[in-house]
């Protein structure tokens, strides 16, 4: 009877952001599809109403089916029979329910059976599913791969594969990692060779740590150019499970997200279809795939934050010690308030980023249909830049917060939280991977530091700064302007060194400083629209300010020569 959308009014708030109307208008090409499809919207209000109603269905399925299944899936896990994956019983139920509800291929065009939803409501669905079961959202969320097919594959391939995702419930996988190619994907060795007789590419080799590796349709990164050693020799292929040639050697025994099968795959003459151009596999397609996946992990992280916060809150209200509910002790309510502030901060950054992605991707798709006006082209470039620097920022910040919230949720439970009797221990284990896969936090920082050094974050902070807020919120606005000075000083100091190692050494601190200021501004602007965020904005700004000051102080007293002090053994 629970509904994970309706019981969370913050979600509807983010869905109603002022920029949504423009996004939807572009995505719907001014609502021209209503003549062709009986489920296309008439106008913006109609589209919004559809998002709202469909998310209600997502919330219902998550509350009634996915969340109650989470515990048994965690205990049972998937297993391998005859080289293929059998999901836990609850996983199968979840997939079937979401499938029948038509919730696969949410963002794909209607021509292929998709719902043509923008990224924002799709990501919101991921946020909701993740709160219900962070392990399951991996399987469901791999429909992201279909977005890559939609972007880069041929018309023929789109027509062949996308309807299967939308209508038949085919699940997907992205096969990138190998035993010796993890963070460094340039080292991928899986071979793709053209077979003249069979007129197909054949894939041979091993992939490792592949989420849902036995999915129906897989995107495979493989070396198509024999003799090459780097990323320029890699191409992207579609492997269709119907053709056979790939077996699951084993499933990893993991700490968390146990329901999500992490597979080691053996390719033996598995036929593959080339996607797009040869040699562009890593350079272009994987980069796009990864950006989509990173946003997905950010959504997963926010869902985990939501689950952790709710578990902590409920326990703190129910648990009586010293004659009162423990939530009444400052040590506990402060912890919960900070958790809630971090949750709201991560979520507002998530949807801000999703909107940036929506804007540029929609323009990109439109540009395939017609030439964009100069104004539109400029806007596309602007949003693409923002999406590029915000995606690693939200992935990094939200995943770290999901770990912190899970930790605090257990702390609130005390000894009971350490036991298997409460969901928090599963949430804690599930959270741990978010700051690791699709690029560790350290690698998100590598991607995000450009936003610091090029001044792109600062420029966006200035945009937020220029927005008017109600007079009674002005004091928060002012304190953020001062905080931005601290950030600018720190950036100046580090970049003035002209030393890459020094920049790398402080990169995380600088990115976090930008992150705290950006999230503070977003919460302030949210509060300006709706006072339900007032406490979170105040608390986050207080928290963020302390963090920024600490980093600023660390950087202020740090010199290039000090780096040696950090090298114990090398």
């Amino acid at each position, binding site marked *: 009877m629970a509904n994970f959308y309706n019981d969370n009014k913050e979600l509807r708030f983010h869905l109603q952001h002022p920029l949504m109307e423009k996004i939807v208008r572009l995505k719907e090409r001014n609502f021209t599809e209503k003549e062709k499809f009986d489920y*296309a919207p008439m106008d913006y209000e109609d589209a919004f109403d*559809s998002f709202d109603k469909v998310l209600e*269905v997502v919330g219902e399925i998550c509350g009634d089916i996915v969340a109650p299944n989470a515990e048994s899936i965690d205990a049972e896990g998937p297993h391998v029979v005859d080289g293929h994956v059998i999901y836990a019983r609850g996983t199968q139920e979840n997939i079937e329910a979401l499938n*029948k*509800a*038509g*919730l696969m291929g949410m963002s794909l065009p209607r021509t292929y059976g998709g719902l043509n939803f923008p990224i924002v409501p799709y990501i919101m669905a991921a946020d909701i599913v993740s709160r219900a079961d962070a392990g399951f959202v991996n399987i469901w969320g791999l429909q992201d791969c279909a977005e890559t097919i939609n972007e880069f594959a041929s018309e023929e391939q789109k027509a062949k594969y996308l309807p299967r995702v939308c209508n038949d419930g085919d699940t997907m996988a992205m096969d990138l990692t190998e035993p010796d190619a993890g963070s460094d994907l340039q080292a991928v060795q899986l071979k793709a060779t053209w077979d003249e007789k069979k007129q197909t590419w054949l894939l041979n080799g091993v992939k490792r740590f592949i989420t849902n590796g036995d999915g129906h349709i897989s995107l495979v990164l493989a070396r198509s150019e024999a003799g090459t050693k780097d990323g320029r020799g890699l191409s992207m292929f579609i492997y269709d499970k119907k053709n056979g040639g790939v077996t699951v050697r084993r499933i990893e025994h993991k700490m968390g997200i146990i329901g999500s099968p992490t597979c080691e795959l053996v390719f033996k003459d598995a036929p593959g279809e080339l996607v797009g151009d040869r040699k562009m596999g890593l350079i272009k397609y994987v980069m796009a795939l990864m950006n989509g996946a990173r946003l997905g992990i950010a959504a997963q992280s926010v869902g985990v934050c939501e689950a952790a916060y709710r578990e902590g809150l409920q326990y703190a209200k129910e648990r009586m010690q010293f004659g009162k509910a423990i939530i009444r002790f400052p040590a506990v309510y402060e912890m919960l308030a900070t958790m809630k502030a971090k949750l709201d901060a991560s979520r507002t950054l998530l949807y801000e980023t999703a909107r940036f992605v929506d804007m540029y991707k929609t323009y990109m798709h439109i540009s395939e249909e017609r030439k964009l006006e100069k104004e539109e082209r400029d806007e596309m470039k602007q949003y693409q830049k923002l999406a590029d620097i915000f995606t690693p920022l939200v992935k990094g910040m939200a995943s770290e917060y999901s770990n912190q919230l899970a930790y605090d949720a257990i702390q609130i439970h005390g000894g009971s939280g350490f036991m298997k009797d409460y969901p928090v221990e599963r949430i804690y284990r599930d959270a741990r991977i978010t700051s690791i896969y699709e690029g560790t936090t350290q690698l998100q920082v590598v991607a995000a530091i450009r936003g610091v050094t090029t001044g792109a974050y600062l420029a966006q902070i200035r945009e937020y700064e220029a927005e008017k807020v109600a007079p009674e919120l002005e004091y928060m606005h002012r304190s953020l302007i001062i905080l931005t000075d601290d950030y600018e000083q720190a950036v100046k100091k580090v970049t003035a060194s002209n030393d890459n190692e020094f920049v790398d050494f402080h990169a995380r601190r600088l990115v976090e400083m930008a992150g705290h200021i950006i999230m503070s501004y977003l919460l302030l602007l949210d509060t300006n629209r709706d006072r339900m965020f007032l406490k979170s904005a105040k608390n986050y700004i207080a928290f963020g300010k302390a963090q920024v000051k600490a980093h600023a102080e660390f950087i202020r007293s740090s010199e290039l020569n000090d780096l040696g002090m950090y090298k114990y053994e090398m």
Partner: protein
Amino acid sequence: MKGYKIIVLAKQVPDTRNVGKDAMKADGTVNRAALPAIFNPEDLNALEQALRIKDSFPGTTITILTMGPGRAAEIIREGMFRGADDGILLTDRAFAGSDTLATSYALGQALKKIKDFDIIIAGRQAIDGDTAQVGPQVAEKLGLPQVTYVEEVKEITGKKIIMKRRLERGVEIVSCPLPLVITVNSSAPDCRARNAKLLMKYKHAKTVTELQNSNEDYMHLYNDRPYLNIQEWTVSDIESNPEELGLSGSPTKVKTVENVVLQAKEAKIITSADNDIDQLMRELIESHTIG
């Protein structure tokens, strides 16, 4: 295979599962305004069985037939969001105050007008009255065989249907010729969730009365898309004897209704699943009830 024609009998009921203090009026009748109106739960089990038949036999059509006030059109839409093709709302002041006899008479007359169907399927009983009489009475009035307490439709071949019945002391597998009336238990599988595309397709569906009372922005749609018009039948649309309708057709007279205050604050349903039993044991040990 041309599929089957299925009529699902459904009722909109007050949600008596979560009753508050104001659930009853001073005179002992149900305060419908205080309770949310929902799709009767076992009718949803019945709809799911119909949808499964439709999944297996393409070309099958499902029509929701419901009797009730204007707002009962809501459950027809709910049915369409899940895969029903259309619906008929039987609504008229003349039907007001119907007990099970008058209800089954009105439904029966509506079904005689529909005429063409293979399977009539309904929930075993509605949660507001708990009589389990309407389904069987409809079957009697139409002279059709009835199979009650069905948990699963196992097989249909041509004009024969095989079902599993859930009885107190076990299960029974029965076979029956079509057409027939089936009533379905809550032990049958839950109904699937609403489907996103169907939801968007049918969300504007309305009865004539609803359309007249709304400031619908998309009036042109109702000409262009006939499926958005939910049929609304009044007493003049069916052949009937006024004596047998509504209050005059209802021999049941409520003498008094007592407001029973239960001692226990809350009840919990515990299934026989290992998880549930483990949880119960843990709670009992924790509260020192046992151990």
